[in-house]
Every structure is written in structure tokens, then in C-alpha cells.
């Protein structure tokens, strides 16, 4: 190595400062130009934005499905869509919202924000992160591409057997559904592993366990839930597709299989799934409530313990989805009790947020207003949840619109309202510009009124006996008025999202400049520039408190000694975050994209012939070897 190269090789962040350091680091951590550069990027921020935009596109698609269904149900005896299409619509709506929007959108925020909040330069295993995004994208495109080509699953988002078996549903719809599960769960599991390792090992020096932001704690618990829950649905959907394609008998009661086995495996995933979708919402709420109350969250320790309790309890509830399947009474009683028990840690969280607001000086900006909407709607959904946990009530209203009302209150209240809050809150970090506040408040009014008008009447419809998943109803039932009201509300609610989309587009181009920390928030992402540089931070911060940006004065403690021209980051110890290793973070690579592509071809091919796995595996293996093989001798040092 020439002396000049050696000097460049050895330059540390302590040797430089200001603009030169920023420019050199930005070059080291940057993304290449052109299509190849874009497909090779390993920057967690770019991939996080792609995750979010893809998830929002699916939200729009799933929302349009919902609107078509509401138009159909707006009046009795309607023939806007027929029964067959209606089955496809509610299947695609549920599947899209749960697997292609609900789970990935939480990951999008985790991928973008967690590395910034823990003060590191990239997520752990950044190439796996890139791979996971492409796998998710291909899975979503496969499902919707199939839909466009009239290969349409129509057996519900949970694909119950025997309806989903080959005997009752020939065609490829359920196979596309099952394979989409494999795609999205591979992606979700990969991201979870990355988040766990980023949080455990890549926190900035000094960020001990009790200084981890609540947002990050929440995403850690969220990731662990995914790690233990998602294998269940992957296993179940693989068993289903094998029953359909190669003649296994897992769910065939005539050959020793069992129908309820599907339900057990599905809901062992399916109930934690509710928390997989909901916990990111609580992460947003914790961050936003603290910032706009101008004080740290009240009860940090009970909040963390509640999160962990929710993580454990979420695995003890699944059977309450199966109360009408004729369970032993003791089993039903146990799952009733555990379903009620989980209201306790959720309640603790709600009380801590309210106490924070109570003791603080709340600033009513759009993010906080949406959080207040969340309190109202989520608590209402939680209360109907406690009602449903009781077997006699559940038996009465099972498969009625009461249940539809309940879970939309929980999921939309628990996830979408905080999500909109999060969009308004972090938009300035991502784009450098603020979203329009006035439009934000109009949006809230539309969303809140629209949502409650759409979904509150469904409680009543359910109590009046209107079943779920019917494409129409006779006028004599007397459900017409409430349905019309619900449909009108749904249109308003949908319009609120179009308003947000418009606000995002306009604000990205001409919104007010935000600066680094427009809300005067406490956590580290606001110490980075807006939008953040590829390296996130020019100097890795040294953490001495739970609210680093509030507690530090002009004196900023930082870590020194990382190389400037190599992708180095600090690996720290798990509990005390003592610096331990200068680990090299992988550079951009096209191989994750190619690996995802090869995997997608093999998975989609397997729907048509099992040999696709046999022939696809060696190809995937070769691509993986190319991905991991060191390209230079320096990579080994």
C-alpha cells in the first residue's frame, strides 16, 4: 500500500472535523448512482423509506377494496358486485392489510428509526435488510399480479380448511395466498433479527438498558414476538400448500389429519399478530406523547415491564379465536382469563401516557391530536375486546359485525391513528420539510368522524344479527340505514387518507424547512440532520441520560477513533453498552437483490411444480455464495 493510501486508510474521525469529516463519511457510507446503485443500496434509511412507500401503496389498494365492499353493502339487495367477487375482495382486503401493510409498515419505521435512535450508522446485517425488502416486494407483487390475472384467493385472510383445501377450492388462489405468506414472513423474520441485534449490540456507548428509548424497547419486544409467532404461520401455510400440491394429508380428516390443527397453528401466530401490528403504534405514541408533553414518559420502568408482559401474554390468547369450536371448558376458561389479563399491561401503558400528558404542557400539534384520537378509539376497541373475551358473549356475536367493529377499532385505532401521527411527526426528519398543520387538523376531523361513523354502527348491526362476509342482505332485515351510514363514514375516512397523501406530496416539495429538531424532541434521531446523512452521525454520540437531546447542553460528548474511509461502527456490550469492537458494516451489493429474485422465481415456480424447489435451490445457493464470498483481502481483517 502506498503511503498516501495508507494515510487515507488510517484517517480517523478525530483527525478531521466540520465539513470535511461530513463529506468524507458521506462518501464512505453513500449509495451508488444509477439503477445498479439503487438496487445495491444497504442504507437502512433508503430501505426503510422503500418499505414505507410500498406498505402505503398496499394500504391504498386494501382501502380501495374496502370502499368497493362498503359501496356494495350501502343498500340492501345490491348487485354492484356478485358473491364471488365479494369473497375475493374481503380476502384481498384482509390479507393485504395484515400481511402487506400492517406488519411491513411497522418494520419500515423500525428499519428507518431504530439505528438512528440507538446512535449507530447502519442496521445490523444491512444486506439481509435489503434482501428482506425485495422478498416482501416480490411477495406483494405476486399476490396482486395474480389478482390482476384472475388468480384470486377467496377463502378469507385466515384461509380456513376445509374450505381452502383442494377439494373445495380448486384453482391456484389459495396457493398464491400461502406462498405470499412465505415471502412476507421471511421478510418480517429477517428484519426482526436485524432489529434485535441492532438494539442489543449496536447501541451508542453509554446507552445502558435503562437509557434505551421506549420506542426502541417496543420494537425490540415486537421483534421477539415476530421471531416466536411467525414460524407458526409459515409452517401452517407450507403444510396447506403441500396438502394442495403434493398430496400430504395434514388437514384431511379422512386420512388422519385435523381441521382444527390449522386453526391452532394459524391463531398461535394470529393473535400475537395483533400485537405485532399494534406495538409499533404504541412505539409511535410513546415518542410523540413525550415530545409534545415536553417531559419524559411517566413510569419508564412500568412501561418497559408492560411491554414485556404483553409480549409473553400475547402467546396465551390464541384460543379465544376458537371459542365456538367446542373446546373443553377448562381451556375456554383459561383463555378467557388470559384474554382479560392482557388488558392490564395495556391499561398501564394508557395510564402512563395520560399521566405524562397530565403532568406536562401538551402542545396540540397534529401528531398529538391523532394520538388523542388513538386513546379514544383504542380504548373503545379494548372494551369490546374484554366483552368478547367472555365465552357466552363471544358465542352470541361470533361471526357478526360486532366482531368486525371490534377489531377495526383495535387495529385502526391502535395502529392507523398512531401511524398518521408518526407520519406527521417524522416526515420532517425524512424529507427536511414540515407537513402542513392546517391540513393535518382537517385530516384529523375527517378521519375521526369518518372512522366512528363507519365502524360504530357495526357494533349495532352485529347485535342485530348481521353476519360477516355476506355480500348482500334483504331489505326486510332492517339493516339498510345503519349500513348506509357506515358506508358514508368509510368514504369520509378514505378521503382523509387522500388528504394526507396530498399533504405529503405538496409538503415534500414546498413545506417549511424543518431543521434538525423541529419539535425539540429528546431522542437521538433528531441530532442527525434532516434528512440524515448516509452516515447518520458525523461523530458517534456518547450517551449519559435517557433524554440525550434535552439533557445535553452545548457540550456534546462523542466517541472518537473510528476510521473515516471505511464503514466502521461501534459494537457494544449488551447491558452497559461499553464499546468493544470496531466492526465493519457490509458495503452495498447487488447480490441481495439477485438472491431475492432467485428466491421469488423458485417460490412462485413451486406453486406449479415441486421441482422448482429442487432446481431453484442450487441457484439460490450459488447466489448466496457470491453474496457472502469476500471480494477483497481487506474485508477479512
Amino acid at each position: 500500500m502506498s503511503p498516501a493510501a495508507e494515510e487515507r486508510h488510517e484517517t480517523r474521525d478525530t483527525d478531521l472535523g466540520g465539513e470535511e469529516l461530513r463529506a468524507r463519511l458521506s462518501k464512505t457510507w453513500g449509495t451508488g448512482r444509477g439503477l445498479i446503485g439503487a438496487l445495491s443500496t444497504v442504507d437502512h434509511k433508503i430501505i426503510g423509506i422503500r418499505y414505507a412507500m410500498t406498505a402505503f401503496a398496499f394500504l391504498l389498494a386494501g382501502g380501495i377494496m374496502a370502499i368497493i365492499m362498503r359501496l356494495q353493502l350501502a343498500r340492501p339487495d345490491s348487485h354492484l358486485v356478485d358473491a364471488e367477487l365479494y369473497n375475493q375482495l374481503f380476502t384481498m382486503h384482509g390479507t393485504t392489510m395484515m400481511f402487506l401493510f400492517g406488519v411491513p409498515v411497522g418494520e419500515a419505521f423500525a428499519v428507518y428509526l431504530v439505528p438512528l435512535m440507538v446512535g449507530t450508522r447502519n442496521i445490523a446485517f444491512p444486506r439481509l435488510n435489503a434482501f428482506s425488502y425485495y422478498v416482501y416486494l416480490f411477495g406483494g407483487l405476486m399476490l396482486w399480479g395474480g389478482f390482476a390475472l384472475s388468480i384470486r384467493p377467496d377463502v378469507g385472510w385466515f384461509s380456513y380448511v376445509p374450505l381452502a383445501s383442494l377439494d373445495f377450492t380448486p384453482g391456484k388462489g389459495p396457493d398464491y395466498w400461502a406462498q405470499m405468506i412465505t415471502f412476507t414472513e421471511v421478510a418480517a423474520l429477517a428484519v426482526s433479527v436485524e432489529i434485535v441485534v441492532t438494539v442489543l449490540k449496536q447501541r451508542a456507548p453509554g446507552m445502558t438498558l435503562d437509557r434505551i428509548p421506549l420506542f426502541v424497547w417496543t420494537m425490540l419486544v415486537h421483534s421477539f414476538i415476530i421471531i416466536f409467532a411467525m414460524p407458526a404461520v409459515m409452517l401452517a401455510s407450507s403444510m396447506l400448500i403441500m396438502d394442495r400440491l403434493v398430496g400430504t394429508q395434514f388437514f384431511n380428516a379422512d386420512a388422519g389429519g385435523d381441521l382444527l390443527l390449522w386453526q391452532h397453528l394459524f391463531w398461535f401466530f394470529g393473535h400475537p399478530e395483533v400485537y405485532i401490528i399494534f406495538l409499533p403504534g404504541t412505539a409511535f405514541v410513546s415518542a410523540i406523547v413525550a415530545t409534545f408533553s415536553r417531559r419524559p414518559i411517566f413510569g419508564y420502568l412500568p412501561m418497559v415491564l408492560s411491554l414485556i408482559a404483553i409480549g409473553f401474554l400475547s402467546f396465551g390468547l390464541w384460543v379465544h379465536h376458537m371459542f365456538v369450536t367446542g373446546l373443553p371448558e377448562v381451556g375456554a376458561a383459561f383463555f378467557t382469563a388470559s384474554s382479560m389479563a392482557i388488558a392490564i399491561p395495556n391499561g398501564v401503558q394508557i395510564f402512563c401516557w395520560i399521566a405524562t400528558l397530565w403532568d406536562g404542557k401538551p402542545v396540540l400539534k397534529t401528531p398529538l391530536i391523532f394520538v388523542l384520537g388513538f386513546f379514544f378509539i383504542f380504548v373503545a376497541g379494548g372494551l369490546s375486546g374484554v366483552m368478547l373475551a367472555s365465552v357466552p358473549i363471544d358465542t352470541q356475536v361470533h361471526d357478526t359485525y360486532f366482531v368486525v367493529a371490534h377489531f377495526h377499532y383495535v387495529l385502526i385505532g391502535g395502529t392507523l391513528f398512531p401511524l398518521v401521527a408518526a407520519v406527521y411527526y417524522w416526515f420532517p426528519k425524512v424529507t427536511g420539510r414540515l407537513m402542513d398543520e392546517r391540513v393535518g387538523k382537517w385530516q384529523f376531523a375527517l378521519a375521526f368522524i369518518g372512522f366512528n361513523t363507519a365502524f360504530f354502527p357495526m357494533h349495532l348491526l352485529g347485535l342485530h344479527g348481521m353476519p360477516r362476509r355476506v355480500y348482500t342482505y334483504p331489505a326486510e332485515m332492517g339493516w339498510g340505514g345503519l349500513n348506509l351510514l357506515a358506508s358514508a363514514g368509510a368514504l369520509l375516512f378514505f378521503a382523509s387518507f387522500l388528504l394526507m397523501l396530498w399533504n405529503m406530496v405538496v409538503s415534500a416539495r414546498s413545506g417549511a424547512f424543518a431543521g434538525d429538531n423541529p419539535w425539540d424532541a429528546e431522542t437521538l434521531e433528531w441530532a442527525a440532520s434532516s434528512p440524515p446523512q448516509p452516515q447518520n452521525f458525523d461523530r458517534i454520540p456518547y450517551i449519559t441520560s435517557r433524554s440525550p437531546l434535552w439533557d445535553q447542553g452545548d457540550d456534546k460528548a462523542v466517541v472518537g477513533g473510528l476510521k473515516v474511509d471505511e464503514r466502521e461502527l461501534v459494537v457494544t456490550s449488551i447491558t452497559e453498552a461499553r464499546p468493544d469492537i470496531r466492526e465493519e458494516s457490509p458495503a452495498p451489493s447487488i447480490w441481495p437483490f439477485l438472491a431475492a429474485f432467485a428466491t421469488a422465481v423458485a417460490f412462485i415456480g413451486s406453486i406449479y411444480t415441486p421441482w422448482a424447489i429442487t432446481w431453484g435451490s442450487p441457484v439460490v445457493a450459488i447466489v448466496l455464495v457470491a453474496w457472502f464470498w469476500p471480494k477483497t483481502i481487506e474485508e477479512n481483517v
Partner: protein
Amino acid sequence: MVRSVIDVSGLPTYAFGSRVTPWWGTLSFCLLEGTGFALGIAGYLYLAVTNTHWTKDAVHLNLVWSALFTIVLVVSALPNFLIRRAAMRESLRSVRVLLLVMSAVGLVLVGLRVMEFSALPVRWSDNAYGSFVWLLLGLHGVHVLTDVADTLVLTVLMFTRHGTGKRFSDAEDNAFYWYFVVLSWLPLYAVLYWLPRL
């Protein structure tokens, strides 16, 4: 005012075991794959309890090939242990020799697993019991196959100019994962081969 309070320039660029990120990544994958195995076994047991024809369906599996497989697999933990140790000492010669040993052992195990499949008295399509036997054996087989493939690539890698520094940490990580392949087999072996005989 920016003030450096810690200097990390003297820290190593790689280490072993739980100090490095890949170890935690591997552990996380062991957790999620272990959950998959546990749920697979749970499904098998669920049918064993609920299906009235189970005792008739659950034909006994051939003990010869599986016993050989289990013995070789358990014994492989020893060279695996030695690899971890040699890797942590960064002894290139020992790591190379032991990786060759592990590659050979791995290929033998793949062969034994193929024999296990060919000796199965039940097909996956015969009944749900057969489906589960093929599923669980296959699921574990995939783990054996992928780690053997990984070991082969690593063996080649250690014989090239890349066989230095951080690659010892990779070798250690690969050995760590092999323990999971060994340990996850034991409950599967008990359930598949011995439970129906009780």
C-alpha cells in the same frame, strides 16, 4: 462544543462468541427455527392425541439408519468443539484439517438421511402421520443440508488467501450453528422413532 470522551481506535475489528453481531444473528435464527421445530412436534403430538386412528397409522420406523445418523451426528459435536477452539486460537492448520473432517462427516450425514428417507415404511401422502414424518425429517434434513453446504464453502474459503482474521470468527459461528443442528435433532429423533413404540 464537541468533546471526545472515549477513544475506540484501539479496539479490535473482530472477536469471537457473543461479543460479535453474527453470533447474535445466528442465535436469533436458532430461536425462530427452533420454534418451527417445536410447533412441528406440537402438531404431531396434537394429532397423536386427537386422531383415533393414530395408533394404527403410526407404523414403527426403521431404527438402523436413524441410529447410525444419530450416532454420527452426536459424535460430530467433538470435531465441532475442536473447530471452535482452533478458530478462536486462529490456528489455520487445525481449522483447515478439522473443516475437512466436518465436511466429510456432513456428507456422510446427508447420505444417511437419504437412506433414512428411503427406508421409511410410509409415504407422505398415505395419511397425516406419514405427512408429519416426512415434514419433520425433511425440515431437519434441510438444516443439515444447508449447514453442510455452508461448511463446504467455508472449507474452500479457508484454503484460499481469505483464510485469515475475521474468517476465523465465521468458522466459529458456523460451528455454533452446528450445535443447533445436533441439539434440535434429539427431540425429533425421540418423537419420530421412539414415541410410537411406547
